[in-house]
Every structure is written in structure tokens, then in C-alpha cells.
């Protein structure tokens, strides 16, 4: 078990293992998404109040869940990178940020599209939309910080601090904004006793959530592989992989990472 994790932490093995996992993860993602969309868009009955327009929920809600999940994931990876100096954790944290920002953006756009027929406007300063917008700002700040620092090691460590501070702040932001103004419909799934949502709508929602989750991991592994190749471009195994063992003329005075 532990040796497996140690192997995952080494770039070369990670590259190989991730490469083997990607088709499987991608395949399951596709399958779940097709089934979830079919159940959500065709099988689930129209809502008695919102008609068919509620069906955007099957994209909106999982995207919003992912936006929060990825931020926490980023902070945890950042923490691991900070404490145990693991290069792979740094790469994971760094590469998941744009994906998280995209999910946040998707949640905002779908929320806005859903809001148009329900609330009558594209944008309201509703608490959850607002905290989602602030989350997007947090992601963009993280990405901007990553871009501003040239040395990848320093960038990862600085980003980790920012992500950890941000994740301490997310609940505070969320509840302060909620308290400030709310119009959004209450949570219908997370009530533990009995969700206030019918199972014909709950199942597609959960399937879509799982599909989005796996989609994230598929994308993450793909991006991490690319980033890894770039960072390790001067190391022996990458050059063997790419089929040129001659040292590149540009790499003479740069240290081998």
C-alpha cells in the first residue's frame, strides 16, 4: 500500500500510472454522464413549479459542488506539498486551479441562465451566487499569483499558503454573504434525514455529480502529465520517452531539475 503511494509520488511512475488510468476514468465519466443526462433530461418528470427549466440543475448543482470541492482539494494538496515537500502534490494543486475556476464559471453561467426564467433577471445579488462569484475571484487570484512567480517551487508554496488561508475564509465568506442577502432556494439534497427532492430527480443528480467528479480527476491527471513532462523536460526519463537523448543546446547552463 505505502509503496504504491511512494511510486505515485515519483514523477516517472506517476506519469506511467496516470497514463494507464486516464482511459478508464474517462470511459466511466462518459458512461455516467450519458446515463445521468438521459435520466435527467428524459426520464425525470417536469417540476410542478418550475416546469422543464429546472433540468439545468443537473449541470448547475454538480458544477457548484465541484467548485467548492476543488478549492478544498487544492488547499489539501498545497498543504501536503508544503509539509512533505512533494513535487506531485504541488503539480496537482497548481493544475487543478484552472479546472476549479472553470467549474465555478460554469456554475455561475448556468445559475444565471436558470435565474432568468425563475427570478426574471440574469443576475441578482443572491447570497449563493455572490459567494460563488467571490470563489471565482479567489481562484483567479490564485492563478494570478501562480503566473506572477517564475520559480515553480516558490509559486507552489506561495499558492499553498494562499489556498489554505482562502479555505479558512470560505465558510466565513459563505455565511456572511448568506446572512447578508438570500433569495436562493434552500438546499434540498444535503438534508440528512430525508432529502426534499424526489428520487427520480435525485438519482440523475447524483450520477451527474459523480460524473463531474471523475471528469475532474481525468482532466487533472491529463494536465498533471503535461505539466510533469514540461517540468522534467531536462531529466533523462523524459528525454528517453521523447526519443532524443542528445542534450538540448538550450539546457547547458540550466540545472537539471
Amino acid at each position: 500500500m505505502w509503496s504504491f503511494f511512494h511510486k505515485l509520488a515519483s514523477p516517472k511512475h506517476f506519469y506511467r500510472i496516470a497514463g494507464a488510468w486516464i482511459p478508464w476514468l474517462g470511459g466511466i465519466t462518459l458512461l455516467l454522464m450519458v446515463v445521468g443526462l438521459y435520466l435527467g433530461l428524459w426520464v425525470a418528470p417536469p417540476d410542478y413549479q418550475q416546469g422543464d427549466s429546472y433540468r439545468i440543475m443537473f449541470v448547475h448543482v454538480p458544477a457548484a459542488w465541484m467548485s467548492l470541492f476543488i478549492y478544498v482539494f487544492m488547499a489539501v494538496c498545497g498543504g501536503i506539498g508544503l509539509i512533505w515537500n512533494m513535487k506531485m502534490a504541488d503539480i496537482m494543486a497548481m493544475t487543478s486551479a484552472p479546472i476549479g475556476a472553470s467549474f465555478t464559471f460554469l456554475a455561475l453561467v448556468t445559475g444565471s441562465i436558470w435565474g432568468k426564467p425563475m427570478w426574471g433577471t440574469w443576475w441578482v445579488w443572491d447570497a449563493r451566487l455572490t459567494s460563488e462569484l467571490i470563489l471565482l475571484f479567489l481562484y483567479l487570484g490564485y492563478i494570478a499569483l501562480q503566473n506572477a512567480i517564475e520559480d515553480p517551487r516558490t509559486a507552489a508554496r506561495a499558492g499553498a499558503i494562499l489556498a489554505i488561508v482562502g479555505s479558512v475564509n470560505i465558510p466565513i465568506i459563505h455565511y456572511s454573504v448568506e446572512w447578508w442577502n438570500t433569495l436562493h432556494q434552500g438546499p434540498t439534497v444535503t438534508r440528512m434525514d430525508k432529502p426534499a427532492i424526489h428520487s427520480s430527480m435525485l438519482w440523475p443528480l447524483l450520477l451527474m455529480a459523480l460524473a463531474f467528479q471523475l471528469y475532474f480527476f481525468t482532466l487533472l491527471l491529463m494536465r498533471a502529465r503535461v505539466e510533469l513532462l514540461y517540468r522534467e523536460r531536462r531529466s533523462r526519463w523524459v528525454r528517453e520517452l521523447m526519443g532524443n537523448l542528445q542534450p538540448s543546446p538550450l539546457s547547458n547552463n540550466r540545472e537539471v531539475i
Partner: protein
Amino acid sequence: MASRPLSAFWAILRRDLLLAFRHRGELANPLLFFLMIVSLYPLGISPEPDLLRAIAPGAVWIAALLSALFSMENLFRGDFQDGTLEQIALSPQPLPLLLAAKILAHWLVSGLPMILMAPVLALLLSMPAAATWALVYTLALGTPLLSLIGAVGTALTVGLKRGGVLLTLLVMPLYIPILIFATNAVSAAAAGLPISGQLYFLAALLVLALTLSPLAIAAAVRISLG
């Protein structure tokens, strides 16, 4: 020996205050900035007293956020450039404590004057007396928070060439809860409602930031020093 970290704390505090006092001209800049932003509101929106009264809490607090951010940039920059920050980091005393001294000194010269100036601004925006007091209370609890949270961002960006805009991007979202609670307290006070709830929230956030942020700032400073 037990008092060594504390005496280092006082030494840094005294040094930073002295340095600030030697550059008296620069001290006024964030305050002028604060005053100017607030005076832009009547010019840009309307000099109508009723309207001003309605937007006053937000106007003053947004100006306070901006001016805190503006003054934040100089918190570590000079010490970073001349190597003092590195010496502080190398000292055997706990780095979070020493940086807390720097932040306290910075707050004394930039945050405290803002609180003292708040009644004047309240007058300009024709705020009622109760709201003026609420403004002073919220600024008293809020400006140290702005300094503590802003210092994390400043410490992360101090080594970068153009950290200014980036600092705003990093720190602004983290300032939002403070803005919400503070402006809500001032509006509630203007309407004659009790504001102890909002003040408790701000105080709780301040205690939390006081406990945790020096650690984050110290870690960030070490990263920026490389």
C-alpha cells in the same frame, strides 16, 4: 530569558514607529487617499443628504478597504529590499511574533488615524450621531483585521516586481466578510437598531485573525525570502 521574545517585539515596534516618524510626509498619504475617495462619492453620485446618508456606510468602508490595501504595499517592501526582513527571519526569536510587531506598528500609523478621521467623514456624508459611533467601533475592530489579512497577501507578493494589482486580487475577496458586517452594523445603527451582534462577529474574526494570520504571514515571508 523568558522575556527575550517580548523585548524583541518591543524593539521591532519601536524601530518601525521611529522609521515611520522619520518619513512623516508619507504618513499622510493613505489618509489623504481615504479622504479623497470618500469625497468622490458626493461628487459622483449626488450631494443630496438623504442619498448620502444611505450610501455613507458603504462609501466610508470601501474607501477604508482601498486605503488599507494602498498602505499595505509598503509594509514589507523597504525591509525586503534592504535585507532587514532576512535578518529578522534569521533571528532566534519567533518570526510570527516579530512580524506581529511590524503589523502593529503599521496599524498604529495607518489604521488608527483612519479611525480618528472617521467622524469627520461621517460629517461630510451627513451621517447621524449613532451611525458615527458605529463607524468608529467597526473601524476600530475592522482596520486591524484589514492589516492582518492584508499582510498575508503582502508577504506573498513582496518579492515580485509588480505586486500592487496582484495584492488587490489576492486580498480583496478575503475582505468581503469584514465589509459586510461593518457596513451592516453602521446601517443598523443609523436605523436605531442594536449592533452588538455584528460587533461580536467582527471581534470574533479579529481574534481568529490575530491567532492564525501571524503564522501564515511568517510562512509567507519565509517563502518570499526563498
